[in-house]
């Protein structure tokens, strides 16, 4: 598929990007609102064109462990699910992080807790960036706010995953997953040849050449001294991500008296609220998080110095706001506004919250 303009759903964009970015395998289990990812993969039959494997596993637990097995060989392997399914994968995620296996996980969030609702939500922020599984680990977490970003971030995910030998999470939600927008597709990137895979993943379990030691993929280390050294190595990796891989978008923040901080579909709603506020003469900016981990701490702190108040908008009871307050050292009035349980706030509600909670 050459670069062309299309109209498609966010979920479909994820699937097409996987194929176009040279993904070797996808293992998943259907769940609303992300089922179109696997539906699209099955309809496209990439095993007949690029040779990519697409397999419906018996459960999310099986999917994530298939990812572990496939990705341990240095191949580009992905899975996707929605909130309850991602909860089932948490053990696998911490093992992947602990074994330093690059891979891609997509969470198209729905309302919780529990089975919750199938409507959009953003209440998996804590799960995504504060652990979820056990141990001191982080997932590099990207929050797309458009169908185009759903597509582009899959390509970016492989770069980060292999550069840092770390799982990458694309944290989306049912609104972006189900929404259709314009999309410019890219030229296909060929799947890695055997030689390329060995060069890009020298640590992988792709066979032992004579003269080289065994490549062992494990998250088990019973010697605590060594495990501490390993943990320091992980922390150094996360510190490097914080230094080099932070992404955000600041819109109208230069002259803003107030800013809204948001990510994903909430940031789109907030953008409209910002426009409505500006029409009323209120100088509002939007600070959109693109990476949730690493969090743009320094960059947000810099903007926050110049404003009178910050409204955090998230389809949750207030999760991201904790990191916003940490970034600004609570130096500026910061409040949360959110709808949750599958309700999407309207731009009017966001503006009202800004006026009532921050400006008044």
């Amino acid at each position, binding site marked *: 598929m050459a670069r062309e303009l299309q109209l498609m759903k966010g979920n479909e964009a994820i699937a097409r990007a996987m194929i176009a970015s040279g993904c070797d395998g996808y293992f998943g289990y259907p769940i609303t609102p992300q089922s179109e990812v696997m539906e699209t993969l099955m309809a496209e039959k990439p095993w007949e064109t690029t040779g990519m494997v697409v397999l419906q596993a018996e459960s999310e637990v099986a999917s994530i462990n298939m990812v572990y097995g496939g990705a341990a060989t240095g191949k580009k392997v992905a899975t996707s699910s929605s909130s309850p399914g991602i909860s089932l994968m948490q053990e696998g995620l911490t093992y992947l992080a602990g074994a330093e296996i690059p891979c891609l996980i997509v969470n198209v969030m729905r309302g919780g807790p529990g089975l919750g609702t199938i409507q959009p939500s953003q209440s998996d922020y804590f799960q995504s960036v504060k652990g979820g599984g056990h141990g001191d680990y982080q997932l590099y977490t990207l929050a797309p706010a458009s169908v185009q970003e759903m597509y582009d971030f899959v390509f970016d995910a492989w770069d980060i995953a292999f550069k840092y030998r770390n799982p990458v999470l694309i944290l989306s939600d*049912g609104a972006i997953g189900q929404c259709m*927008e314009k999309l410019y597709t890219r030229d296909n990137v060929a799947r890695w040849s055997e030689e390329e895979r060995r060069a890009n993943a020298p640590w992988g379990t792709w066979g032992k050449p004579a003269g080289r030691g065994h490549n062992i993929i494990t998250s088990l280390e019973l010697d605590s001294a060594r495990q501490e050294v390993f943990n320091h190595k992980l922390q150094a990796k996360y510190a490097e991500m914080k230094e080099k891989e932070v992404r955000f978008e600041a819109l109208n923040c230069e002259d803003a008296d107030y800013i809204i901080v948001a990510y994903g*579909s909430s940031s789109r709603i907030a953008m409209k609220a910002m426009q409505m506020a500006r029409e009323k003469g209120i100088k509002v900016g939007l600070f959109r998080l693109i990476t949730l981990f690493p969090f743009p701490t320094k960059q947000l702190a810099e903007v926050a110095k110049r404003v009178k108040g910050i409204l955090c908008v998230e389809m949750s009871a207030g999760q991201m706001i904790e990191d916003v307050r940490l970034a600004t050292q609570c130096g500026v009035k910061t409040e949360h506004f959110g709808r949750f349980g599958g309700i999407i706030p309207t731009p009017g509600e966001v503006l009202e919250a800004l006026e009532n909670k921050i400006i008044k």
Partner: protein
Amino acid sequence: MTEEIIIAGFGGQGVLSMGKILAYSGVMQDKEVSWMPSYGPEMRGGTANVSVIISDERISSPIINQFDTAIILNQQSLDKFEASVKPGGLLIFDPNGITHEPTRKDINIYKIAATAKAQELGISKVFNMVVLGGFLKLKPIVDKQYIHEGLEHSLPQRHWNLIPQNEEAIEIGKNLIEPVQVL
């Protein structure tokens, strides 16, 4: 130009595909577009709706609750969305199955008897295009040639032989729509 539209009716009436054809036509005319469906339990219960935005500028929120135009194909949707039309906006409804008509005086109300006309002509499958034609008569936001391209992109190639019928239905709709005076 920004046009924010809600299309709402029963599942099976072609609500989502009407929105998709309109949106794809917008893409072909180099507009910014978004298409946001209801996919929740309401869809499973039989009603369906989709918000379509067509604009010359970057679209902020694809999720909206105030509309320039509401295209309404059943009573539940009329009850739900009549109040969401912006003052001065447009409400189009098909009178089929409507027991109480819209009452607002600050919006422009039109009706299009598309269900009856499509049945009469034996073209019920393209009923939704009759409705779309009515809308395009009042708000020609995408040109005819791009509608053709939108149809090509929205329909699988095996159904391209149906494109002329779809285009005829659009023309029928243009002649069918009529204003409603709220007394």
